[in-house]
């Protein structure tokens, strides 16, 4: 390999056919005289622009598009040299860091010698060691391109905003389960908004037996084993639900506030009394009708109960998880969109309450397709305000444009699976810790179950990872009509 060109932080390297380099590989460009080396990542492999190549190709097809038949008497065997030159490739590389005295710096301000520099592939284990990617709390994500294990540090997920994205059936949920289970292993409290019921059987192995996580997976299904009593709620939480999920107008909300205060003063906060209070409240008939319609929506969701004993499971689970680590799976599979919003509004408010009162240290929230249940104003809340309380979110989506741009800008880690659509890649490339060229070039060619890890988890050295298999019943598979035929 030979150093050819440097423009900004892009380096072009000429590579010959006997040197196998692929997209995503790391190269070490060492300048012995300068005592420094550049670490560059191959983001694209192109044909080298060889003079005369067009003539060469045209010459081989002069006979109406068919190869002209003939014999070459090439006594000096120049032909292999011709193909060697023809097959030379140009590696477009992005400079990631400079190594000097075995320490890394993000600088790319110096220029290695074009004639004296030596260029070689940098094995991923060496890079991991140099960049200190594996830390005190290792999580084995899978294999790297050169078949070594890639271990990240759980600390790099702590207090961070993560995004897992990629097109359908590329393995996003699989990775989120892997991260989740490893966090549980380190006694973390994990909450999952499970839209499709994919996480319900994480406590089972693929052959249906209990696994090590069985006692740590707590599945809460709203209106079944997960209900709340009005007494457990703060007024502002219920108002958020009424205004944002059930679109209660402002005037009616003011009347509701008065009804609530009245019931609270009389210690009569329950669904039955709430219905009675609305019925007997002196107010405009339209307001009463508005309040009644929302009241019946709450009743019909079956999420609210007057039986306090029924409404304690969430807190029980949270405190179990706090003690030994565990995951609270909120099963939203058969929940209507409005009920989903009611549940999520309640949960987020509840967690903030638990965190602010220091009854919980922090939670790792995994939100699948969050746009389906998270109201607009909550996005910013989650990534800014709630982060300070200790809610560290991982968004999982196959529609990257449903996640707002400012979320990408603040994302600390991105796990990017395959995308072929230019628009999708454009959206993801807005993330602050990512350069657009890397995303667009590498993500497009990722095979299923391979992801590009970006951000703090890989110390800003984007890495292609083959996500390891899990021995858990994942239930993320799509139900098929022609399954038997296949």
């Amino acid at each position, binding site marked *: 390999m030979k150093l050819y060109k440097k423009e900004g932080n892009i380096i072009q390297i000429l590579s010959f056919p006997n040197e196998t380099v692929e997209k995503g590989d790391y190269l070490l460009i060492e300048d012995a005289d300068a005592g420094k080396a550049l670490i560059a990542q191959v983001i694209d492999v192109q044909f080298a622009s*060889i*003079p*005369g*190549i067009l*003539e*060469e190709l045209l*010459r081989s097809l*002069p*006979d109406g598009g068919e190869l*002209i*038949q*003939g*014999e*070459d*008497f*090439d*006594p*000096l065997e*120049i032909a292999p*040299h*011709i193909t*060697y*030159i*023809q097959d030379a490739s140009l590696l477009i590389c992005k400079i990631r860091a400079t190594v000097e005295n075995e320490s890394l710096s993000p600088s790319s301000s110096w220029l290695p010698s074009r004639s004296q520099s030596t260029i070689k592939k940098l094995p991923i284990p060496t890079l991991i060691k140099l960049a200190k990617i594996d830390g005190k709390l290792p999580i084995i994500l899978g294999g790297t391109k050169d078949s070594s294990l890639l271990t990240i540090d759980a600390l790099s997920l702590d207090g961070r905003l993560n995004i897992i994205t990629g097109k359908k059936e590329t393995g996003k949920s699989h990775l989120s389960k892997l991260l989740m289970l490893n966090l549980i292993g380190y006694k973390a409290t994990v909450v999952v908004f499970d839209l499709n019921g994919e996480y319900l059987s994480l406590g089972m192995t693929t052959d249906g037996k209990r696994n090590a996580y069985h006692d740590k997976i707590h599945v809460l299904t709203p209106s079944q084993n997960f209900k709340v009593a009005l007494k457990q709620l703060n007024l502002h939480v219920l108002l958020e639900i009424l205004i944002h999920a059930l679109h209660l107008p402002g005037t009616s909300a003011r009347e509701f506030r008065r009804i609530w205060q009245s019931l609270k003063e009389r210690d009569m906060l329950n669904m039955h009394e709430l219905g009675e209070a609305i019925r007997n409240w002196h107010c405009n008939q339209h307001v009463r009708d508005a309040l009644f319609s929302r009241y019946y929506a709450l009743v019909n969701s079956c999420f609210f109960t007057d039986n306090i004993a029924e409404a304690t499971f969430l807190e029980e689970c949270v405190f179990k998880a706090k003690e030994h680590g565990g995951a609270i799976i909120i099963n939203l599979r058969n929940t209507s969109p409005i009920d989903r919003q009611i549940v999520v509004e309640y949960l987020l408010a509840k967690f903030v309450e638990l965190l602010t009162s220091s009854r919980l240290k922090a939670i790792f929230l995994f939100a699948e397709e969050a746009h389906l249940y998270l109201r607009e104003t909550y996005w910013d809340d989650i990534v800014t305000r709630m982060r300070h309380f200790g809610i560290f979110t991982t968004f999982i989506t196959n529609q990257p444009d449903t996640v707002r741009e400012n979320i990408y800008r603040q994302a600390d880690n991105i796990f990017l699976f395959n995308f072929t659509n230019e628009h999708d890649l454009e959206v993801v490339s807005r993330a602050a810790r990512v350069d657009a060229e890397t995303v667009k070039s590498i993500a497009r060619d990722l095979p299923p179950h391979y992801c590009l890890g970006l951000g703090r988890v890989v110390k800003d050295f984007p890495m292609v990872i083959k996500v390891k298999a899990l021995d858990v019943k994942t239930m993320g598979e799509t139900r098929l009509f022609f399954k038997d035929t296949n």
Partner: protein
Amino acid sequence: MIEQYTIATTPKYNFPQPTTNTTLPQRLIEQSIHSLKHAQNQPFQLNQQIFQQTNNIETQALQLKLQPIPLQSKHEETIVAAVDTSSMKIGETATGTLIAVRGANVWKQNRNYRYIRLGPFIFHITEENKKEVYNTLQTAYFNTQHEHNHHSPPNLQQMPTRIASLLERWLQTTLTKTINNGLILFDGSLTTGTADTPTSLMKEILEAARKRRNIVLAFSKMTNLRFNGHLITDILLEHKPPYLLETVGLKTKPPIVLLGDIYVARLTKGNYAFRLDIDKQVTPEQKIEAVEKLLGNDLLSQSYPETLRLAHILCTFTANEVIAMQHFTAQAYKLKIINRPDMHRLLFGPFGKGENNA
């Protein structure tokens, strides 16, 4: 002789019979390797302006008959074969020049084009070895002493074209002694008596062709022949092509000899015409018939036969091949590549257009 195979089959190719020296490629290889070995570990200077050389010698004025000879395509199946060679200087060493030559024979048979390509042969030519290389090849090929020896040994600049000419003559001989009842297309003219085109050798080639009832047609891409001050190929009549214009009265001084009758051939629509030399020794009728058979048996585009175009294309060196040959010499013979500064560029900056454009 319709449906008669005009090329006798051999496992590789119809190389000439033993009367012709078939060892030229072997000698080329030997001389090539021998010369390169002597250049081993020498630094060499990349050629700053790569050029291909052609040769054409025409001096006398002539008359052009402005009565066109109309032509009709004759589809009687006839093999069409063509020869071309290329030479190139690929770099310089401290003591000499690295050159490469390659040649190609192309023929059209059963509506398919086929080729055999020889080379590239790379030589390291120095003042010391140029005579030896050239004479060895010449003797190996000619067997008899031709008037070549009357000429002074070629200088280094001429060596690429001179070695390519040797290869071209050999390829021409091969075709003339292999094909029957065919048309053999040469690149250039049938003017002889120059260092590259010894008259006796060219006579032998033409005679060999005639013996097998072949007719040699030589197409020149460039000519200096003028009529009434205009290049003969620029004189385009109103007549609808294809046609020939005959020239007469061209006189040459010894040692220059014209072995062909010279025509202007305008074979397709468009403003392209070429000087066409046809073997003097064949009858005018045979000459016309040969061109008509060419029209009926080969593709013609811009008045130029496809077979000859392919021969040219196949032997031409592309920049990619030049790099590959430089790579080969550097790898196999450890020649260190040094870029000697271009003094014109060095002295005159953007006003220096390079040594070859001074």
